[in-house]
């Protein structure tokens, strides 16, 4: 005991640093987020200083915002059509006695944001830093979307690129869909089966459904959309397309690899949105 005390006294500085490290590491999220948010904001400011916006960039931002807003309008149309399809399916299945349509969805906040830092300091995480924070109405947990124009048909399709992780006053960090910490309740659009999608790694198939039941019957090209089952997000926002189905180590389960419509490593701007979830009872499956 005396030896241990002597060791502690001799290495007081080491013990202090180690204790501080442990305290930081085990700090609960509700205490850590304000700290990490401010730190993310500070690092964003530094990054913005290192990559200052040129006057040309500023000139470009106004049409960009306008374009993003237009894309969002199209995206709402897309969501509405998917919801309409969902409504018809519900009717066909005759399980829709009290289900309302989800047309009351509102995009309560639309925040276009520009990517400041496209990479995480860690080789094993995938995050981006954008120039919008709590001062602009961003809060943790909001969805980050990207709008893409379809090549051969009019309209725009929006897809999920990530979730807001930590928020500072003027910047926030978005956890990309390819990050290992990304989890989102989703649904196969064709079969209506509920699944959980998670980040896998960057590349052609950055997202996966790890433990997929054989009943899901996924085939390449099938769309996976948000399910809205937790009440946090609305349903019907595109997450990705089924790229291939592989055997899992936990047979008969399968692993479904998804391709994102957008290259998550080359994002230049995103739209952070808060959508009021529809007041629709859960489907019975």
């Amino acid at each position, binding site marked *: 005991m005396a030896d241990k005390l002597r060791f502690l006294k001799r290495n007081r*500085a*080491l013990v202090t*640093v*180690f204790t*501080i*490290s*442990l*305290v*930081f*590491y085990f*700090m609960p999220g509700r205490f*850590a987020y304000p*700290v*990490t948010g401010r*730190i*993310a904001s*500070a*690092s964003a400011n*530094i*990054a913005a200083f*290192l990559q200052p916006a040129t006057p040309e960039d500023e000139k470009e931002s106004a049409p960009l915002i306008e374009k993003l807003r237009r894309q969002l309008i199209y995206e709402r149309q897309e969501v509405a059509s998917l919801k309409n399809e969902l409504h018809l399916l519900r009717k066909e299945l005759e399980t829709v006695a009290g289900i309302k349509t989800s047309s009351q969805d509102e995009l309560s906040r639309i925040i276009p944001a520009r990517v400041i*830092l496209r*990479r*995480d*300091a*860690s*080789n*094993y*995480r995938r*995050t981006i830093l954008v120039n919008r924070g709590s001062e602009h109405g961003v809060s943790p947990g909001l969805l980050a979307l990207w709008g893409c124009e379809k090549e051969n048909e009019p309209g725009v399709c929006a897809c999920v690129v990530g979730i807001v*992780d*930590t928020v500072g006053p003027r910047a926030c*960090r978005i*956890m990309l869909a390819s*990050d*290992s*910490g990304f989890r989102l309740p989703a649904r196969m659009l064709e079969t209506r089966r509920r699944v959980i999608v*998670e980040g*896998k*790694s*960057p*590349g052609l198939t950055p997202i996966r459904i*790890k433990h997929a039941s054989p009943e899901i019957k996924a085939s390449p090209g099938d769309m996976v959309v948000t399910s809205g089952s937790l009440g946090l997000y609305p349903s019907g926002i595109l997450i990705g397309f089924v790229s291939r189905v592989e055997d899992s180590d936990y047979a008969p389960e399968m692993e479904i690899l998804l391709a994102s419509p957008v290259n998550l*490593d080359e994002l230049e701007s995103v739209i952070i949105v808060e959508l009021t979830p529809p007041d629709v009872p859960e489907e019975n499956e």
Partner: protein
Amino acid sequence: MKWYIFILLAFLFVVFEVAFPPSWQLGDAHPEFALLLVIYVVLNAEPEDTIFAAWLVGFTKDLFSTGRLGTHSLIYFLGAAVLLRLRKYFYQEEILVQSFVAFCAVFAASLLYLLQLNFVLPGTDVSHYMRRVLVVSFYSAACAPVIFLLLDAIRRPIGIYQKIRLY
């Protein structure tokens, strides 16, 4: 150790890591410059400074990363403590030895990071990342001699006046 210069240096290393040109990446991996700085300090600076320096570099890296605050600082702290015990066995001037130490340290730190990731996010496939761990370790080891030469050139401003020779 001149701490204010060292903090600036740590910050520059992490920023360089984050802003590493994509065309220089191996696959999708970049070298762990911050960890190379820690290794250099642990191998060459006064023992009493090394642990805190490692923690400081780790904390700087935490500022630019997601996940729990203090993850990198804790890993670098533990890594520095282990490497400090082992440094008397290394011939620091030898390039191959430097690269080997860098490879082992980056490999061990990456594994520790992934294990804690698996602890924080259950279900994370550590084996899935093994190829990336190897690529990052090799790339860091390849960069180590250049980075150590660079740091040798500026060691006096940092406050490493005389390289500790234990062999």
